[in-house]
């Protein structure tokens, strides 16, 4: 995907979220670090443009809720920034790549400790399949069939100076760039 395709996907998702929610009422858009955060900010901005008023956005770090903490060296923990009270909000979780689904499970657990949202939706830029838990996204930018040895690399202008989604077929050393498949 190039920059235009990413923008079109996000614009469509923004409209879909608003349509499903009958407007922006109670919406709270939360990005999952790292690359879910700029995506959430873009989605919220797009929705705000449609609705004519700002849509609250923030970020939800899920590191401490992961199920694989023990199997690797200590992970750095990101920030959690909530624009308001989670209770009663319609939370739209945003991430770049949906793969095993374990990150989403961690995010649901994290939200559970923060309050009781009226509903939780999931929006992802790329769904690459290979789910390991019964999780599905409500809004998907692009379905990208992949083999499990491949990696999906998402780069965004905010973090990587360029908007692009690519499938990496060989598996060189981890570049640390938005590759859900390595987590």
């Amino acid at each position: 995907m190039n920059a235009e395709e990413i923008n079109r996907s996000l614009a469509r998702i923004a409209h879909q979220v608003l349509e499903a929610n009958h407007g922006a009422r109670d919406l709270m858009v939360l990005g999952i670090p790292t690359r879910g955060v700029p995506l959430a900010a873009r989605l919220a901005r797009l929705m705000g443009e449609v609705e004519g008023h700002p849509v609250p956005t923030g970020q939800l770090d899920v590191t401490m809720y992961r199920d694989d903490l023990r199997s690797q060296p200590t992970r750095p923990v990101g920030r959690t920034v909530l624009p308001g009270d989670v209770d009663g909000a319609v939370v739209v979780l945003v991430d770049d790549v949906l793969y095993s689904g374990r990150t989403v499970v961690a995010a649901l657990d994290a939200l559970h400790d923060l309050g009781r949202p009226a509903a939780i939706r999931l929006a992802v830029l790329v769904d690459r399949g290979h789910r390991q838990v019964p999780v599905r996204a409500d809004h998907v930018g692009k379905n990208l069939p992949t083999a499990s040895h491949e990696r999906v690399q998402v780069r965004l202008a905010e973090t990587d100076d360029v908007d692009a989604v690519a499938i990496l077929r060989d598996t060189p050393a981890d570049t640390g760039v938005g590759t859900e498949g390595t987590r």
Partner: protein
Amino acid sequence: MKHLLSAADLSLDEVTGILDLAEEMSQVQSRPVKKLPALRGRTVVNLFFEDSTRTRSSFELAGKWLSADVINVSAKGSSVSKGESLRDTVLTVAAMGVDALVIRHMASGAPQQAAQWVDAHVLNAGDGTHEHPTQALLDAFSMRRHFRASDPDFDWRDKTVAVVGDLTHSRVVRSNVLLLRTLGARVVLVAPPTLLPSGVQSWPAEVSTDLDEVLGSADVVMMLRVQRERMSGGYFPTAREYTVGYGLTRDRLARLKPGAAICHPGPMNRGLEISADAADSAASLVLDQVASGVAVRMSVLYHLLGGDDEGGTR
């Protein structure tokens, strides 16, 4: 990180990482569910051979809020009072399969010894007159918040911290000097000549015996407790004389640098090293220090226990 035994063990990156995560952890204190699952299934033992309220209870809360199982073993009422040696006590507790030992001991070097006997992570919660690294971390955390409030981009290298009082018997001072040095701050130690530890000239800090001379240049004045229980007397003639020379009196409070903060690791001897006016003034960070204790210790526990058993950082 495998152990936290000395503030000198920490690199600048590690200190920054611990303080940054502590900032996140301090948010947990205001959440409806004060619980994170990161250390679920881990067991932390607080092994306290010496009295402590704030350190022990904040380590206990820190562990519990990270979902670890925490048990407290204090010397009173344990087999220590029946004459068991440090080594046997440590080995006995470790044999139960604990992941971390938080040790407070009246003998300098006890946690370092324990770290050689067991596989578990060992945290020094204060050893004799040697070190107290988590106290130094929470002091740095409180100071950083204070400095950031007026200048979010402040540089530690522009800051001067005066540490005043009973340097000989203080474990806080050594950890603070080492940590502040890592951060880059200028440290001035102030004490009567009788309370300057031997070898203080080799520490990475300036030394003075005149508080009034230092007062005007300090961005933080850290008052140390006069540890009467560790003194056999003879360090200064009378308490009154100590207060006149080295106490943070109302008069000295008025002569602090504008915007300067006051720290005290507690418990305070009001009227001796710190006046009530100073302790309760707007410049005082004393209660912030206590509140930061849990968040900083959560951060430390996560850095030690949050990953695999190698204790590395990704």
